[in-house]
């Protein structure tokens, strides 16, 4: 069987919404989305699944770049995006149900960003 876990395709930020739309039209489901903070940049991962096959896209964005939300295309993305926004401080705009950093209600602000000396 193909090794889906290693296969990560890097795409530019402006293609994110287009790719998400294509995946939606193909009838795939959103498997997961997550953010990583490395070298003063965010790496956002979006995985889509069709039965057992999985495609993972990676978007590298700068700290101040705005990321369009894909929750209008994939509704369940709102949980992942709220998480990215609150824990990492990724600037995502247009989330369907935006908790405004009250998703986890933590005392520390963007803990995953601060601790690595980002801000």
């Amino acid at each position, binding site marked *: 069987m193909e090794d889906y876990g290693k296969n990560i395709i890097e795409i530019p930020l402006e293609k994110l919404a287009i790719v998400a739309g294509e995946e939606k039209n193909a009838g795939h489901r959103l498997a997961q989305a997550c953010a990583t903070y490395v070298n003063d940049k965010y790496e956002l991962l979006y995985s889509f699944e069709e039965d057992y096959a999985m495609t993972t896209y990676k978007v590298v964005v700068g700290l101040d770049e705005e990321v369009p939300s894909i929750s209008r295309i994939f509704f369940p993305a709102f949980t992942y995006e709220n998480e990215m926004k609150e824990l990492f401080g990724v600037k995502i705009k247009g989330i369907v149900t935006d908790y405004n950093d009250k998703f*986890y*209600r*933590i*005392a*520390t602000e963007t*803990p995953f960003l601060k*601790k690595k000396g980002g801000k």
Partner: protein
Amino acid sequence: MKSFHKSPWLLHYDASSCNGCDIEVLACTMPRYDVERFGIINTGNPMHADIFCVTGGVNEQNAPVVKQIYDQIPEPKVVVAVGTCACTGGVFKECYNILGGVDKVIPVDIYVPGCAARPESIIDGVVKALALYQEKHDKMVKEGRGLPEGE
């Protein structure tokens, strides 16, 4: 009020534990361990509870909930911290959102160690809590705040 300390009701609350200790607290009421033979009943209502079992290291959002539940339990009450996380914070002590132990929020009477705490040790903790409960009750009676036993 003789039945008072012979049938304490237990309230369990999960204050950010990993679930392991919660499941063991529930397992105590199951046929194998059966704490109901000591007259202990697991209740969902703080107003009915006498013994408060807290698991987990308490995070920012949970602290006011734990405090509120503690305030709702009528006097006398005994707090049992179940599991290593509830005692000190355990492996999660260094996490950014963990306060580190139930005693940071409310006074704790009995500490039950273990990760996850075994049902035997939880029962041992609860039985110790019973003795303490009796003591607290006697003290209340002496101070004229409660009804004496045997009536």
